[in-house]
């Protein structure tokens, strides 16, 4: 819609581009924008009942969960920052470890509360539920990998032991 209007303006102005033409271009683009956006606004208003539910899915509500998540994020940042401060030599290792330990303890408490809340999914948004699901699967994979690695190490350590024990037996 915009280019035909501009062509018309240019034609009226004998194909010359000067300051008035530029501002007429902008005016025309604005007129199209007004129609477009106010049209969307009117359509959204008309749709107010039908789409309400779907749109609600996007919204992130302020819930105990989101507040706990936010606290956990703060603690993660704080630990990271403290590690950097320690590496920069601004804080002693002992002090840094003490404070990091304190953060970790708080973070673990928060994570436990988050997991406890996990049983009641009604409060969480779709996004939060997906995030949690992904994390849970990653955690399962990681535990499996850890268990595998542990088992491998056990076998490795058991094998030489066996080898060692065999001659003696």
């Amino acid at each position, binding site marked *: 819609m915009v280019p035909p209007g501009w062509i018309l303006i240019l034609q009226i102005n004998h194909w010359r581009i000067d300051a008035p033409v530029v*501002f007429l271009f902008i005016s025309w683009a604005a007129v199209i924008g007004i129609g*477009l956006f106010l049209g969307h*606004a009117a359509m959204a208003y008309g749709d107010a009942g039908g*789409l309400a539910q779907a749109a609600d899915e996007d*919204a992130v509500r302020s819930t105990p969960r989101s507040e706990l998540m936010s606290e956990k994020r703060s603690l993660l940042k704080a630990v990271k920052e403290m590690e950097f401060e320690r590496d920069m*030599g*601004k804080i002693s290792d002992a002090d840094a470890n003490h404070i990091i330990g304190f953060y970790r303890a708080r973070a*673990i408490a928060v994570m436990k509360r988050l997991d406890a809340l996990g049983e009641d999914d009604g409060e969480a948004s779709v996004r939060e539920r997906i995030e949690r699901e992904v994390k849970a699967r990653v955690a399962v994979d990681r535990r499996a990998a850890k268990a595998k690695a542990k088992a491998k190490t056990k076998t490795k350590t058991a094998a030489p032991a066996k080898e060692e024990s065999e001659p003696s037996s």
Partner: protein
Amino acid sequence: MPDTSALSIPTSPIATLGTVALLVAFVVAAYATAAGIIGHSRHRPALVRSSVHSLYGFFALMALASALLIYAFVTHDYTIKYVAHYSDTSMPVWYKITAYWGGLDGSLMFWVFVLAAFASIAVKTNRRRHADMIGYVVATVMVVELFFLALLIYDKNPFATFLTDPPVDGKGLAPLLQNYWMVIHPPSLYTGFVAATIPFAFGIAALASGRLDDRWIASVRVWMLISWFFLSLGLILGGRWAYEELGWGGYWAWDPVENAGLIPWFTATAFLHSAMIQEQRGMMKSWNVGLVVLTFFFTIFGTFMTRSGIVQSVHAFGQDNQLALLFILFLIFVLVVSVGLLAYRFPQLQSAGSFDSFISREVAFLVNNWLLLACALFVLFATMFPTISEAVRNVRITVGAPFFNRLMVPLGLLLLILAGIAPLLAWRKTTVERLKAQFVFPVAFSLVTTALLAILIPATRARSPIFHESIQLPVTLCTFMLVAFVFGSVGQEFWRGTRVRMRQTGGDPFTSLIGLVVTKRRRYGGYIVHAAIAIMFCGFAGKVWGSQTDVTVTKVGEHFSVRGYEFIYHGLEITSDDHKTAVTANVTLLEDGDKIDDLVPAKWRYVKQPEEPTTEVSITARLSEDIYLVLTGFEPEKGVANFRVYINPLVDWVWIGFFVLMLGTAICLLPASLAGGFGRRRGRAPGTLIALLACGGLLFGSHTAFAQKEHATAAPVHDVGVSVAQYFRPNDPEFLAPFRAKAEAKVAAAHPDWKPDSAQFNAAVNAQLAPVVALAQKLMEEIVCLCGGCPHEAIATCKCGVAAQNRRDVLKLLGTFGLLDEATRGEAHDEVIAAFVKQAGGQHILAMPINEGFNRLAWAVPYAALAGALVLLYGVGRRWVRRGENQLAVAATEGAPTAEDEDYADRFDDELREID
């Protein structure tokens, strides 16, 4: 109903269309407000979406209105009053476009347009992340828009037309506004003001929706940083404009309009620091919301100050009591709503704050907030004090630059100390041993630099008053010492940070440095801003040993010298075009016999406004100092010309510092996506804004370079006679003659063996005369010029005839006293001041109110407020430190982790690895 009301239907088609656009915009804004609020309160997201689209539509409507108004300017549609008043046919197109914001009506519409643009960008980029409060954001912005639109529609419609025949040609834009600095300075300052509405809207939306987590603070921080940047840009461009165009050799005069931009800058800076405490520690939520509200409040208050006429300024629009009343009502509304919402959500905003130690970054930020808020409130108080005095006692007084400098210089130096100290402190706690290790290099660097400067450049040792006239310290040297300390501190941070990064990644120093700055962009961008501020302080410090010299030349080819520079006068040149008549002096500047520049100071007289001639300065810019030449008067028939030469040391470092500040801000705003996959952080700034910053930088840079040779319009000056500027100076031989005779007699009596013409004798006489000259100079700096053409400049510096007359009166009055003994000098000072106050009918002739009676408030309140806030700060800090110590003690007594805890710890470590 005023005839400028939008409801008086105009006749021009452009005016009709523009007015209809404004009326429709008003309706759309009202709908968007209602839709946003109802959408959230009744959980109808589609309504919220409708309000968002209405905001975009509103922006398009304002774009249409703006384009139509500019179209009317460029097509000379003089049926529209605003166009006829602020443009004429002969004006260049560029100035016709900028005439849009040249007057009150247009500037209000420009405000609405810029806010609509910013709000659209902010809502577009945040509508998903803040889906549960974006409707409130739209509603808040729209309420502000409704207020300004209501002003436009009711009384200030820029599309209002003449009821009788329109004029054939317009009046033309004021000469003051016809220069390139005025093309970019007002929009940048407006943008800073307007951008502060966005964090405010998010703040109010967070309060209304109850969502006060750190997601909110991240978005608000980004927009506050953008607002802060544009406020900085507006202030620095205003300074540059004043420096180049007003012809008084300075860049900052504590004018109320300048102060209006500075006050929200202080509160925005305070917020940018305290927001970090909230993000790091989850504390100070209500304080941060308060700062956001305060910053917005001050931007509206600043607009009110400049547009209502309640303060006197050469920059301000005229007095408008009706507008003032409407602004006051709106400000009250803003306060009531904000404070009400804050009170309602206060329980949610409370956090069990705790500090581990007084020696921590958190506490440094608290002190920083105290200082910045003190600066904001002091500047506000001092700016408003004349108005308060007039309202309470019906006595108009002047609060000039000396009053501001008395408190702002020490506060500025304290802020500079903090800019160096804070980077060296760790979050939570820094032990004394570590503190020593951190401070060794910056302190050593600072001391060595100070010693070298004191030895190599004796001028830096010059003493100047601080806090009180009796306290004379080498403020310049102290400033350089602190600047060096900041450089040392910031440099050390970069050095150590790079080394840590090298250890972590195994990269080379350069890659590690880039990686460090990009991953920790807020921290290191902030450090660059600290360094930039320190660079700017170098420029401020240089002012102390600047000079001002008035010279008269009577014939072509005459030479004169000022501080080692030689000037050769080649005569006056008179030229004219459709627009103006210009009288230009041609002067060659030499140093050690070598030519370094051609200077062309001039005076322009516009055809349309001959009563407002303008002064064009000519500047040779050097990193060490600027040579700044002003043509103060001339007689073309005789070839006689008066010049004023300013030598401004280090002034270019103010502008250089600003470039560095832009770089630091751009790094802070670097979007996570550009930061190379470290994108889990929030606070993504629109990439376009980064581009905008870069463009702004280029624009500013090109203009700064260009400005050295080009000369545009300047402030109106009085048509002066020859030599007026240098008439009646403290070293006037006629004034000093009787004192010299007495001093010679005194010296001869004390030392009969000295020959009268010997160097020893003359030195002793001059030593006797020096306090007399100093007293006259002091008085000339304390008394301001009330000519009306200058911003109450001191009579020592004002170039007009009124100032010269006042100087003559000062010398005449002083001549009646025997000034060679100290007691009489004190008495003479008071007598002269009293005589001037009596003659002027009030203390408004003084740069500072006399410290007596009601005026004591002006002196006492800032100090009392500072001290009170410091006590409060200490109380709060102590409480939080104790709480932190208790928490750590409790944590230390807790038992060893269980197996379950270890599992959680593993998960925690995994998540920790995901962030950089």
